[in-house]
């Protein structure tokens, strides 16, 4: 498969060489299927020969991939797709191999999404070879598989900055490059956007192609059908590439093994891959030959010819009914095949919408990814030679895990509790719940709208549904929250993970708006834990609230280290009651959710400078703890509300109440600290918090500024 043995080995041989002149394995022999490695290495020139005895097949080292990045002579000549146009198919294959190793080595240093990019190496090469980006529009659904695309479109030298502050985005981004014609992060948007681009092109009289690449997972979302339906109706010329790797949910495995794809679509796609009619035809032909006699191969080729005519009508009814012309399935790792098909479709005028069903393998070409149950979908930095990922050491677990454990504890004592998620069993922690309660965990595929109304239906029957959907993904199901849940006052519980800033995934995944859009709903109870113990209690509280909907938000990241309730069982809180954490004077910080921790840090900073602040944890945004707010407003000169959310959230609700209650008519100075009115780019959590102006230092500086101590404010910020 890979011509790895022809690469001259230019780098220093020994990495971690033992004192006894240890072996340095490039490839274990079983990976190459036992082929002779005589052709492998060229130790001339710089290497100290004494260090380098290569022993292939050193199984004890278990290295199934390069430990050093192999040379990429062909890829080095490609900066933009235009440099690919004169390559032969053979060279395209070599380019694919080099591109693959480039992706692996880049991601090994930065972390990010790996498996999906590896699955589309050949597809990316074929697309850029046949089409002329950026005039031809190439759209990548979700965008996390766009790493090879970025490398081929002028961003190879920036790959080391991937997902970091001021670096390349981990998804497609219009402002980053003209080759990224549509930004993504959430799924299932590309057919819609592509159709818009196709119609726009036609209205403007242009002639470019539009190609949208979408995965089988993203195909489970309703928007994909809305788009295909419209595309079929308009009969616009565009190409949809269905990248089918049979991985529908994330991670693509639960704790105990690969997850069978959810939904009926996967079965339909599988059946498309069956060769039954062709095979049966051939079997019949064999039988016929036996009777007639004559050279088998001649007849076989005639059968093939006839077969072509016969089976051409066996396209997929599903897509054809929607008005898309179906071609496939196609081997997504065969550049030859894909180039042939793409060229032919491109050269056919006025095709209307065409869907090319491409079958790929997630993680292809990196043995550890291929073997892993989750196909190395998202990885930390890792060692390419062994596949071992860096484990971040932390004394506490993630809020995600704590949520799952809390829900399990509740479900142990209440048979009616069920959990629902939208293709995010790992990301929401519900894989743990699934393992404990296999019949009470529902994965609906990428279908947030359906998940919410489905939960509403369950609630009608007396079940207690917990919908675990990321804050930003819940945006997709918002009308269902309003119309199906809140309006009818159905007790659906929403567990919103990834609230606030999320780090390297960037603004598409940032949960900035959930406080605003949930707290404005008349019947919704809205709360946020300030630490993991509070999370356990709020899960219990939500379980106990059975007459109206409720929600709670928690951030990405790990707990702060407080003691957990015994047996993971929280105690329901009194609804609409906050708590005071530190009693101080003059200045009160009223935090909501994880911001409370920043408030505590700010108070510590100010304590050392002679100010003793009051710090309170609001716990509830709706209903607000009126007594607490009144007391703080009346006994302090300054009240600062802090939250990691947009305007219109907690601070706004507090202001509304205070205004109506007359608390702002006196000498109180109120200031809100919220996320700024702009999107915060991807980066490290610390950088993002800095950019947002919500670090403890910013809070402390705000206090100083209000107190008229500008100099101290500047000091603390430097």
């Amino acid at each position: 498969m890979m011509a790895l043995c022809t690469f001259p080995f230019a780098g220093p041989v020994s990495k971690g060489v033992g004192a006894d002149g240890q072996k340095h394995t490039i490839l274990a022999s079983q990976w190459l299927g036992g082929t002779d490695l005589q052709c492998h290495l060229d130790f001339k020139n710089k290497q100290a020969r004494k260090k380098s005895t290569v022993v292939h097949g050193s199984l004890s080292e278990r290295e199934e991939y390069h430990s050093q990045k192999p040379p990429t002579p062909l890829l080095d000549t490609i900066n933009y797709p235009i440099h690919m146009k004169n390559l032969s198919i053979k060279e395209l294959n070599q380019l694919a191999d080099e591109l693959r190793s480039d992706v692996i080595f880049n991601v090994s240093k930065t972390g990010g999404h790996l498996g999906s990019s590896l699955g589309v190496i050949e597809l990316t090469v074929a697309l850029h070879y046949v089409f002329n980006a950026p005039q031809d529009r190439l759209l990548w659904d979700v965008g996390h598989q766009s790493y090879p695309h970025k490398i081929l479109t002028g961003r190879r030298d920036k790959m080391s900055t991937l997902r970091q502050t001021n670096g390349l985005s981990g998804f497609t981004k219009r402002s980053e490059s003209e080759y990224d014609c549509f930004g993504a992060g959430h799924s299932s948007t590309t057919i819609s956007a592509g159709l818009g681009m196709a119609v726009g092109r036609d209205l403007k009289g242009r002639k470019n192609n539009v190609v949208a690449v979408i995965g089988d997972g993203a195909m489970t979302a309703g928007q994909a059908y809305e788009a295909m339906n419209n595309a079929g109706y308009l009969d616009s010329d565009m190409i949809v590439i269905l990248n089918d790797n049979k991985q529908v949910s994330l991670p693509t495995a639960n704790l105990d093994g690969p997850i069978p794809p959810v939904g009926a679509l996967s079965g339909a796609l599988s059946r498309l891959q069956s060769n039954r009619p062709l095979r049966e035809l051939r079997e019949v032909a064999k039988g016929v030959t036996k009777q007639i006699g004559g050279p088998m191969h001649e007849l076989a080729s005639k059968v093939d010819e006839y077969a072509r005519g016969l089976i051409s009508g066996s396209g997929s009814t599903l897509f054809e009914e929607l008005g898309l012309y179906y071609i496939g399935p196609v081997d997504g790792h065969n550049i030859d095949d894909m180039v042939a098909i793409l060229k032919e479709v491109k050269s056919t005028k006025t095709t209307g919408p065409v869907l090319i069903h491409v079958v790929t393998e997630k993680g292809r070409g990196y043995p550890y990814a291929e073997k892993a149950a989750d196909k190395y979908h998202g990885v930390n930095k890792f060692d390419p030679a062994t596949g071992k990922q860096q484990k971040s050491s932390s004394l506490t677990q993630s809020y995600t895990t704590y949520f799952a454990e809390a829900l399990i504890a509740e479900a142990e004592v209440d048979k009616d509790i069920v959990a629902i998620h939208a293709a995010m069993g790992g990301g929401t922690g519900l894989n743990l719940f699934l393992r404990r309660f296999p019949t009470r965990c529902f994965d609906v595929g990428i279908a947030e709208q359906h998940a919410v109304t489905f939960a509403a239906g369950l609630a009608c029957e007396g079940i207690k549904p917990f919908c675990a959907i990321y804050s930003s993904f819940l945006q997709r199901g918002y009308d269902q929250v309003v119309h199906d849940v809140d309006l009818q006052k159905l007790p659906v519980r929403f567990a919103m993970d990834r609230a606030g800033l999320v780090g390297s995934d960037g603004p598409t995944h940032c949960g900035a708006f959930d406080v605003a859009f949930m707290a404005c709903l008349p019947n919704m109870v809205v709360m946020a834990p300030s630490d993991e113990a509070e999370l356990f209690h709020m899960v219990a509280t939500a379980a106990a609230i059975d007459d109206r909907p409720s929600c709670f938000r928690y951030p990405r990241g790990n707990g702060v280290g407080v003691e957990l309730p015994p047996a993971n069982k929280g105690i329901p809180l009194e609804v609409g009651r906050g708590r005071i954490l530190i009693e101080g004077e003059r200045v009160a910080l009223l935090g909501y959710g994880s911001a409370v921790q920043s408030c505590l840090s700010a108070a510590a900073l100010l304590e050392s400078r002679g100010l003793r602040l009051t710090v309170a944890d609001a716990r509830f945004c709706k209903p607000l703890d009126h007594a607490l707010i009144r007391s703080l407003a009346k006994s302090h000169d300054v009240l600062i509300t802090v939250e990691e959310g947009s305007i219109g959230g907690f601070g706004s609700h507090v202001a509304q109440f205070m205004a109506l209650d007359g608390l702002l008519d006196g000498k109180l100075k109120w200031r809100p600290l919220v996320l700024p009115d702009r999107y915060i780019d991807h980066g490290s959590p610390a950088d993002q918090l800095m950019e947002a102006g919500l670090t403890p230092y910013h809070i402390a500086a705000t206090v100083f500024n209000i107190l008229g101590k500008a100099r101290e404010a500047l000091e603390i910020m430097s």
Partner: protein
Amino acid sequence: MAVVYAPARETLYQVLGIAENGTVSEMKKAYREMARKYHPDVSAPEMREEHTRRFIMARKAYQTLSDPQSRDLYDRNLATGKQGTEEERGYWWRIRWQAQLDELQKRKQTVPTTMSRY
């Protein structure tokens, strides 16, 4: 019968290293040998994961092929391409999409271009 979620690189016969018309006793012998070689309890710690995988594959192959009913079902699936090797699958797929491309060309020659689409 468990469904395989990656394109099968080898048939169950190839896993055991026997011919497609192999007898049950040949199968037994092959399986025993593989079990001896790959059983996790006799593997060196660093090979355990890989050997466990092969052991499980071998056992699955033996279980499927040693039972006449499941073997028959498997053989039929193999014949109709549901569990073929990658090369075979590629061949059949190629025939199909070439036909689909031909059809697309033909279609576009007969369908009149619409005057105004929107």
